[in-house]
């Protein structure tokens, strides 16, 4: 991800940070006159002085991502099953909600959750999740559910009907056949789709700035504004964090996929 494209994205998404971006861009252009100095020691020192602040943002990013992916799975998996095996009203209802959630910009969903629904805060004992955080989790989580349901619809549907019929033929109910035969195979085939979805949610968490939350990317804008000469250093630093997060998660899912791979392949 290049620095300018990130900035362009930010500028398009957020009227609030247009000022910050403009300043940052000016800094980049000015720096261009005297060649860009990525290794400027003072700027790196600035980044590391603020590392705590950025890492705090990274924790927010990770927390929102994990919670949203989990919620997305818990809601999206049954939804995918209903779309695959259901019929009539339940199926049409789930499909329609999915279409709406996938068709609405995430900013709108978040704003709706926070300002319109006014999702309340909850006290988990150890931590209290503010209304904004809860809105973020619900908004990102439900939208992820709408996408995850499509992953599972495709993978459940790809399990050969003959196997389900064989399960029915030994006397399993439809639900048992789905649970013991289709689901274990569909989950294995869902790993690549799941990797994509994880990466998308991770990056989309930045949009919670629209409801006043400051995760990794939003916090990095704050730093641009404070020290316009350190834009590139900040971007390199947060890109490294994003890279570590996506890389480790994708590798972990690769490993999971290999661990559970069916010996000899999937043909039956």
């Amino acid at each position, binding site marked *: 991800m290049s620095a300018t494209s990130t900035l362009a994205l930010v500028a398009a998404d957020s009227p609030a940070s247009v000022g910050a971006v403009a300043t940052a861009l000016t800094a980049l252009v000015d720096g261009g006159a005297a060649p860009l100095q990525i290794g400027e020691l003072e700027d790196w020192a600035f980044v590391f002085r603020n590392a705590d602040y950025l890492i705090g943002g990274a924790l927010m990013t990770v927390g929102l991502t994990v919670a949203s992916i989990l919620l997305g799975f818990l809601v999206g998996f049954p939804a995918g099953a209903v779309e695959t095996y259901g019929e009539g009203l339940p199926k049409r209802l789930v499909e329609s909600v999915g279409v709406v959630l996938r068709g609405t910009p995430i900013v709108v969903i978040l704003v709706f959750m926070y300002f319109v629904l006014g999702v309340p805060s909850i006290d988990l004992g150890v931590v209290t999740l503010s209304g904004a955080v809860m809105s973020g989790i619900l908004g990102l989580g439900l939208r992820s559910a709408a996408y995850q349901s499509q992953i599972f619809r495709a993978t459940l549907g790809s399990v050969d009907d*003959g196997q389900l019929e*064989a399960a029915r*033929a030994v*006397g*399993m109910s439809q639900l048992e056949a789905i649970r*013991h035969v289709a689901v274990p195979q569909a989950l294995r085939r869902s790993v690549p789709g799941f990797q994509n979805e994880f990466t998308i949610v991770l990056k989309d968490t930045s949009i919670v700035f629209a409801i006043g939350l400051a995760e990794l990317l939003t916090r990095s804008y704050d730093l641009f504004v404070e020290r316009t000469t350190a834009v590139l250093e900040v971007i390199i630093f947060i890109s490294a964090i994003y890279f570590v997060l996506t890389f480790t998660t994708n590798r972990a899912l690769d490993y999971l996929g290999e661990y559970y791979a069916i010996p*000899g392949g*999937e043909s*039956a």
Partner: protein
Amino acid sequence: MSDADSNPDADANADADANDAAESGDRDYLRVADISKWYGDEQVLDDVSFEMDRGDVTVLIGPSGSGKSTMLRCVNRLAEAQEGEIFLDGEEVTAPDVDVDELRREVGMVFQDFNLFAHLTALDNVALGPRRVLDLSEAEADERAHAQLERVGLADQTDSYPAELSGGQKQRVGIARALAMEPKLMLFDEPTSALDPELIGEVLEVMHDLVADGMTMLVVTHEMSFARAVADEIVFLDEGRVVERGPPEQLFDNPEKERTARFLDRIASHD
């Protein structure tokens, strides 16, 4: 209805079946009476009737699309007949209030394409039904699965996954999976049609063993020498109708209907 869980030793059970078969006289263990079925406007079964005694082997033959698979599938209610009745061991299979899951525990089915569970080992393929449907303990189900895999000659392949097995081995796992439920009746839908010729023998051999054990079997197959060797009755279906039925000697050597003779000629010239 189920006496399946009382005795994990299937061979002993089958012997008992064979004795019962010798004693009972009426051919009404399986009774298919005037079955008709339509898919949309197309009638695929037209007044089909035949009966089987316990321990009988009946072979359904007929050209492609004549309704053989559909007839088998009506017996375990994977397909629903619109008219007629089917009785198994005195109980009406086609009654609207029959618990189909319970019925299917007692009727084993073997498929042309094996339909093994791709994510499970041979052992788990066979043990899944006993575990989930018969509620046997893990150990009992595994023991039963082992015994059935041994019966089909796969004692040393219990840990193999379907993709690691040859077609003949897959089909034998498929047979063991059906047998592990200790069914009253086994349905075979062209069990050797998807196999390379050199693998057909091992599957037929297992089926021969089942016949010897006294299993009641309704078989769709094009293996005429197998049919001739083991069938008590051959039923020839064409366009959803029973054209002719009778013992193999009669039907194969002296068919009454011209249609039957033509079909047999065509099959013979293919071999």
